[in-house]
């Protein structure tokens, strides 16, 4: 059913009794051309691109719980393409461009809101690092502006300019960055992929890989039975190591918890997405009115999907340092997601050493904003058996070769990326 204001008005007359399921509730078939493990944003986007861009429609997406139950449903909804290193820059811009047409592509309002992302700087060294990054963006045809203090003050007069421990000096602004409604992205891809024939199978946990005599993966064992597949793609960030272990692989990845927080809803207060350069804090305000904010990962391996107090305090300290006006606004909910933290802070999208098994993992903090781009390049890899041109550097062997993509320069210590 096509969604529009007209269909909505028509439905209103019939008491909304005629709406159909947003996506079909499929049962597993015995064999697919491609099985994608993981019904999050990346898995569903991959399925949609396989069907819409590469003509492969005999595809199943297997989700162990409900779609979007992983990091797609727990992030702070920020989208941006302000990355500074070759590999990341082009890829995230590809993703940004796909965000810009997502609603029309999917016939689903994912509320992509290009309200601007600003990274504040507080020292000359930070300014120089942002200048380097912003220039990289411009050289790659991506919008970027370096704002001085006056410009920042004009845009965000509510920041602490007067008695801050680390005064704001300026910021790197990407106006095309912003936010999107995270759940809607999942539902939109599910809606559109399902319409093209993709089977979305919830409550279907993969428990093992089926291999033939040569070791090639030919399907998966699941809680809903064996499902054959010519190719299997993993898009299970947060659980990548666990699923990879079923195929006998060890990955350059650790699982870490990242917390996020939302405040009570208030009238519009913060116009854009901001990151505090002198502490661990980033914030935006949702369309519903809540301040959505977060900081760094808790810093230790975890699969517990819950956070701890010290980081929560740390994040609020950052928020108060930047914007002392939020002191009386109340924090409403905290939650935690499990991140695939890779050894250089950048993702891995590649064939694995196991024939027939393809990997999409290691997203660190970048997973949500990557969703459409990740879907496209992973679909490309699955369809063509070669990397998409914007994903040639996300190879699994880059660590062995020493070709890391390390934006933060922290080396092989995932909790520092």
């Amino acid at each position: 059913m096509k969604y529009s204001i007209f269909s909505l008005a028509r439905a209103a007359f019939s008491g909304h009794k005629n709406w159909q399921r947003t996506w079909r509730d499929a049962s597993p078939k015995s064999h697919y051309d491609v099985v994608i493990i993981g019904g999050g944003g990346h898995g569903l986007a991959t399925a949609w691109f396989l069907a819409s861009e590469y003509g492969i429609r005999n595809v199943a997406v297997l989700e162990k719980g409900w779609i979007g139950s992983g990091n797609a449903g727990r992030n702070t909804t920020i989208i941006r393409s302000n990355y500074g290193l070759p590999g990341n820059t082009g890829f995230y811009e590809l993703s940004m461009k796909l965000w810009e047409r997502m609603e029309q592509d999917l016939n689903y309002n994912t509320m992509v809101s290009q309200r601007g992302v600003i990274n504040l700087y507080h020292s000359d060294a930070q300014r120089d690092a942002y200048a380097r990054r912003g220039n990289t963006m411009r050289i790659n045809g991506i919008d970027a502006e370096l704002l001085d203090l006056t410009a920042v003050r004009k845009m965000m007069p509510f920041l602490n300019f007067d008695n801050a421990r680390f005064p704001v000096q300026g910021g790197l602004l990407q106006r095309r960055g912003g936010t999107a409604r995270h759940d809607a992205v999942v539902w939109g891809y599910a809606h559109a992929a399902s319409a093209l024939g993709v089977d979305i199978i919830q409550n279907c946990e993969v428990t093992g890989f089926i291999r033939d005599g040569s070791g090639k993966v030919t399907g998966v064992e699941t809680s809903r039975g064996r499902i054959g597949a010519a190719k299997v793609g993993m898009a299970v960030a947060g659980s990548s190591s666990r699923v990879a272990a079923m195929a006998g692989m060890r990955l350059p990845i650790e699982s870490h918890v990242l917390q996020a927080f939302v405040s009570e809803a208030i009238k519009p207060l913060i116009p854009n997405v901001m990151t505090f350069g002198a502490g661990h804090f980033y914030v935006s305000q949702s369309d519903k009115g809540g301040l959505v904010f977060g900081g760094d990962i808790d810093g230790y391996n975890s699969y517990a999907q819950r956070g701890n107090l010290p980081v929560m305090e740390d994040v609020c300290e950052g928020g108060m340092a930047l914007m002392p006006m939020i002191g009386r606004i109340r924090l409403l909910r905290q939650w935690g997601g499990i991140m695939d933290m890779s050894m250089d802070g950048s993702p891995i999208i590649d064939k694995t050493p196991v024939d027939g098994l393809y990997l999409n993992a290691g997203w660190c903090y970048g997973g949500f904003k990557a969703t459409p781009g990740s879907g496209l390049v992973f679909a490309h890899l699955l369809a063509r058996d070669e990397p998409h041109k914007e994903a040639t550097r996300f190879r699994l062997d880059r660590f062995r070769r020493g070709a890391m993509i390390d934006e933060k320069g922290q080396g092989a210590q995932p909790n520092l990326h």
Partner: protein
Amino acid sequence: MRIVCPFCGERELGEFTYLGDARPVRPAAGSSEDEVFDYVYLRDNVAGPMSEYWYHGGGCRAWLKVARNTLTHEISSVEPAAGVGAAKVGA
């Protein structure tokens, strides 16, 4: 989280710094590039009981080996790293 430092007693998480998996052992001098690569880059990334290195930098500066469950965050044991308490070696 609270960690019972074998020297200081139970302390709050903020006093500690995490490093990661304590199982991999640094290859001896002369090891191959593959062995060192494995040590530096590959992880079991255990979901469940894991042995890991924590530094009590906000306390007695001892490196500790902590057995902790990554699913529940429950800590079952804490012991000093090999070189802590070396003053007692052979004593």
